[in-house]
């Protein structure tokens, strides 16, 4: 290991009850508590933080939504490196990569990645909440449910081309539920089978209610530093071996191929190349599950199975607890929590698995994990590959 190699030394997420944050919490206070918990775990202080990376939906909508400086004030710090880029739910896998670069370059010593949302408590989520500006003027006025309808269009095309079946989509939700049943922090823990998923209401063909992620509050924090600094800290540092990102479109009509997750393929290939690893080296995968189709298309794009083969890949229970390919081990966005943007939880869960701290849901001997985020309407992909030394 090199002295300035990037490592993750602390993670935290906000405890929820029935998907909601405690009374008296704001998106900002939620992030403060998560930051303190993650820094405590690392043996670091708020005053040590000189890199701040944040994306979300809170704050002043216009003019300008300057989250890094709003949080710098709230925390009482003056970061020398900040990133407030929002590419959707994948922003947090991108941030791990950006923090890694900043740490290597000496732009900061301790980077803090944050997310906080009160969307469930605030009842902020609708199927048509986006304004009709710019290219969205060619989407919203036709009543496209957002973002659901665009994922539904991708699923429809995937089923048309490859024969992917509703029960194969359902398996993604069932697998997530099986993992959630092992996680006391998960919102949805009742037993659920394929038939139960297929019995839920059709919302936007071919996606049913149980193909869609939860709507919850939630927040989290990730603390990164250099291998040199981590050597002086207690606890297990997790290495960031590789990362990659890609983005292509905001409207689904501009997606390069509606049945192929191009940005996931590009981000994943970059992350694997940097890490010097292949899909076969991954012990546990945390893959963004805004919708069941998101997972199937990501599995293909990341190279875990061939194009069009993802339905068959998951169909035998491969991704469930005890299966050959442990995936979304906290219950995912489908059964654990999904506060608007889910990406930070892909990393917090991957880190806990690599540290061997995941309790009943621990994947035995997990040494290498992949966290892959998808943002927007299959608009962006960001991948990071993490490992325990």
């Amino acid at each position: 290991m090199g002295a300035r190699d990037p490592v993750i030394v602390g993670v935290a997420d906000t405890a929820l009850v029935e998907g909601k944050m405690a009374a008296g919490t704001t998106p900002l206070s939620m992030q403060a508590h998560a930051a303190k918990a993650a820094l405590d775990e690392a043996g670091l202080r708020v005053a040590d933080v000189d890199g701040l990376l944040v994306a979300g939906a809170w704050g002043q909508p216009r003019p300008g939504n300057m989250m890094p400086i709003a949080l710098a004030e709230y925390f009482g710090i003056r970061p020398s490196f900040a990133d407030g880029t929002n590419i959707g739910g994948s922003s947090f896998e991108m941030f791990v990569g950006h923090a890694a670069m900043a740490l290597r370059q000496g732009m900061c010593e301790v980077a803090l990645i944050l997310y906080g949302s009160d969307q469930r408590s605030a009842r902020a989520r609708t199927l048509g909440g986006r304004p009709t500006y710019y290219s969205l003027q060619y989407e919203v006025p036709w009543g496209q449910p957002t973002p659901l309808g665009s994922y539904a269009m991708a699923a429809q095309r995937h089923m048309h081309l490859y024969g992917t079946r509703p029960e194969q989509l359902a398996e993604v939700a069932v697998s997530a539920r099986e993992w959630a049943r092992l996680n006391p922090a998960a919102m949805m823990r009742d037993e659920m089978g394929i038939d139960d998923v297929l019995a839920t209401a059709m919302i936007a063909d071919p996606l049913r209610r149980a193909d869609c992620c939860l709507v919850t509050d939630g927040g989290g924090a990730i603390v990164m530093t250099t291998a040199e600094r981590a050597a002086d800290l207690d606890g297990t540092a997790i290495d960031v071996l590789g990362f990659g990102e890609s983005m292509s479109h905001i409207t689904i009509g501009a997606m390069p191929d509606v049945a192929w997750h191009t940005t996931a393929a590009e981000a994943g290939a970059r992350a694997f190349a940097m890490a010097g690893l292949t899909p076969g080296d991954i012990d546990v995968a945390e893959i963004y599950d805004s919708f069941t189709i998101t997972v199937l298309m990501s599995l293909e794009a990341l190279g875990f199975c061939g194009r069009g083969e993802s339905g068959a890949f998951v169909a035998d229970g491969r991704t469930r607890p005890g299966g050959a390919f442990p995936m979304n081990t906290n219950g995912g966005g489908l059964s654990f929590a999904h506060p608007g943007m889910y990406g930070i939880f892909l990393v917090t869960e991957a880190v806990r698995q690599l540290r061997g701290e995941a309790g009943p849901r621990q994947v035995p001997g997990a040494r290498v994990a992949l966290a892959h985020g998808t943002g927007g309407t299959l608009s962006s992909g960001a991948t990071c590959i993490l490992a325990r030394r």
Partner: protein
Amino acid sequence: MSDKPLPTIDPDSAPFWAACGEGRLDLPHCRACARPHFPPRALCPHCHEVGCDWRAAAGTGTIHTFTVARRPAHPGFKDEVPYVVALIDLDEGVRMMSNIVTDDPDAVAIGQRVEVVFDKVTDDLTMPKFQRID
């Protein structure tokens, strides 16, 4: 007046919407590489040169994919569910979102041929929608 969300028309999009009001589906074609693109913008997304000319499309195309909205995306669509939202590949080679006007959403399928129909939504706005031609 419609209680649905209406496009926020801007200088990039104004020629497209104006043509719809005159019963034409106009597309921007790059002056450098001659290829059409959609949505309209200041530079060609294929060759990245600036400058385009507007030309009328035939108004015919093929359903690339679609969904049936069983719940309204906005309260303004409450009386229309279930309705079909589709991506249409126009014969000129661009992809466009619109509605498929039909009494039978369950009969809509990928690959069906469609043609444009114009829906005058307000005095100032006409929206292109599509219906099956087979």
